[in-house]
């Protein structure tokens, strides 16, 4: 019998995750700026306040730090809050509560208190929005022990990582990307409530090169794999899904098979996720296991420009990923 499925976009799958949580788990509530407005968060939370009430879907004053701390406090007192930051850039005003409070609560009190709180930071970039409406900074947060960081790339994960993050007893930063909201898929009707614990997933099998990314970068890699197939290059794509704690076994095993690695990341290069991927692979593989030097496709190390032609050059694209792979395999080199 065919499994029951839902046809959703990434944005509506996020909404489906919220609706599931609010319906099934009375201890869940949502707090953040813009939650009673139709436009702050795309189509990802439409009319949740009407469906579940404004006591549990709370729009707030312009106080990122206090609202994030309040979510943590409610979590410590037995609730499962999700605090929504419609842009990562503004979420930075709340870093103390995310990094220095929530992430450390379990460790510094010897697990005497769990902090089951989700911080949702939305990457909302492009469209000539410029330097302060464009950041992702997921590598910063993934640097922090005790803070789980998830970056859904697929429609199913948009829902399931939100659901599983909220049901997880640890603090989780959930980063979704507006550039993925129109992505569509048929997904199982029942959420995978353990998605956060399942680690990376091979979303395209291949033999010539391993492409690794998270969030939108993973989607770029998938699209690049399609184009590379037309060139006769078989690319394997690993979607990390969770970037802290970073589980690298799947990636290392893949590179061991393909001998080539291209790390794709929608953030800056220095001390970034792409560098971490390369380092972890190189450290764990024996010398000579790779047939080409690893490569990174990342943001240019500069704040996002606004002017259209500059912006067009700034962000990673499918073309840049394809070019990196072509360089990695070597022009004119016959592939096995």
């Amino acid at each position, binding site marked *: 019998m065919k499994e029951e499925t839902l046809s959703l976009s990434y944005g509506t799958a996020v909404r489906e995750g919220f609706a599931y949580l609010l319906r099934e*788990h009375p201890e869940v*509530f949502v707090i953040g700026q813009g939650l009673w407005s139709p436009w702050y968060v795309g189509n990802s939370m439409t009319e949740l306040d009407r469906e579940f009430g404004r*006591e*549990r879907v709370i729009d*707030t*004053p312009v*106080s990122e*730090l*206090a*609202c*994030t*701390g*309040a*979510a*943590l*406090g*409610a*979590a*410590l*007192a*037995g*609730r*499962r*809050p999700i605090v929504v930051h419609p842009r990562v850039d503004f979420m930075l005003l709340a870093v*103390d*509560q995310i990094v*220095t*409070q929530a992430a450390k*609560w*379990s*460790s*510094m*009190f*010897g*697990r*005497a*208190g*769990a902090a*089951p709180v989700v911080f949702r930071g939305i990457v909302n970039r492009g469209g000539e929005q410029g330097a302060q409406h464009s950041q992702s900074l997921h590598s910063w947060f993934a640097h922090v*022990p*005790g803070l*789980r960081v998830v970056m859904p790339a697929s429609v199913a994960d948009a829902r399931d990582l939100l659901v*599983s993050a909220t*049901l*997880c*007893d*640890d603090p989780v930063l959930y980063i979704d990307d507006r550039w993925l909201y129109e992505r569509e898929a048929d997904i199982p009707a029942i959420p995978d*409530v*353990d998605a*956060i*614990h399942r680690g990376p997933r091979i979303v395209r099998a291949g033999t010539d090169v391993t492409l690794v990314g998270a969030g939108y970068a993973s989607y770029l890699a998938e699209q690049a794999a399609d184009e590379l197939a037309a060139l006769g290059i078989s690319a394997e794509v690993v979607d990390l899904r969770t970037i802290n*704690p970073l589980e690298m076994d799947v990636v290392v095993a893949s590179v061991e098979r393909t001998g080539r690695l291209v790390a794709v990341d929608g953030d800056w290069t220095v001390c970034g996720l792409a560098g971490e991927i390369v380092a972890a692979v190189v450290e764990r593989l024996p010398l000579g296991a790779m047939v080409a030097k690893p490569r990174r496709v990342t943001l240019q190390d500069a704040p996002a420009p606004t002017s259209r032609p500059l912006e067009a050059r700034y962000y990673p694209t499918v073309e840049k990923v394809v070019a990196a792979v072509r360089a990695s395999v070597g022009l004119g080199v016959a592939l096995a």
Partner: protein
Amino acid sequence: MQSIELTSAARALGLLADPAQGHAPVALGSRPPEALVAMLRSMMLIRAAENGIAELVRTGEARCPCHLAAGQEACAVGVAAALDTPRDKSFGAHRSHGHYLAVGGDLDALLAEVLGKETGCSHGMGGSMHLVSPEHGLLGTVPIVGATIPIATGAALAARLDGSGGVSVSFFGDGATEEGVFHESMNLAATMALPVLFVCENNLFSSHLHISLRQPDWSTARYAEAHKVAWEVVDGNDVVAVADAAERAVARGRAGHGPTFLELVTYRWYGHVGPRDDQDVGVKRDGELPLWKRRDPIRRLEEALVASGALEPGDVASLRQAVDADVERAVELARRAPYPQADATAKYLYTGGTR
């Protein structure tokens, strides 16, 4: 008698800012004697614990930063007397040994935590600045200034969502009112009418810096006025007055009338951190400190209880001997307790659990 010069900024606190005032026994009000004696005992226990910890710091046995609350006992004990734990939640800051003990936290676990032992309240992972006692509603104390102000606000939101009728408390100092998150939280709590007590122990110092060098006014209650939060300024060295004000604030929260800001005017006897009196870091307290010690919250209650006939002088001595013995025993237990296992640093990182 020496008296500090009361500037217009200081006058906002009235006589409370003048350490030459307020030495008399406290007014006992209508509380039953046993409740008053329990408060006295709790304050004595805190004083004895702080003095004991000071000694452990002097000898080098305690190495973590210890911020001692001797002199401020009435703030913690008075507020705790108004709480119904563990339904009511509380949060503290860097100077929170007293808050922990006042709500009922285990003395042995405090001393063990200060010495970094596995039997500590945080399993030896927190030290003096990270205390917790969930069974008494104390959900955490942290040294980032102001950090538990929004956290307590959120616990109040949880109480409202639960319909538990509970309230929450954030204990912080006058320095925390200079943090932006204090103002964000007061505004949020006032707007949402959350049942939270913002308890500011105004001891006139933040670290080495007197409030006159940090704010244009010695009283922090003006912020409550600005945020439309109910407020009271109270003698923080009068445990009965603190308890009375806290009871009014708790009643206001339980009735759905929103937050209260309590400014408890007090003074710390030790320096900002450690067992010395701060004369060594450029702080000029030598004129004031002896006067403030005459506004001792413990002596003022003791004398009132003896004068009322509730206690004999010998009872007071017995109480003091008992808490001293408790602290001595707790220190010995902590000394003998094991350190955390080598895997503890990784073990507590993630719960790994899912609901």
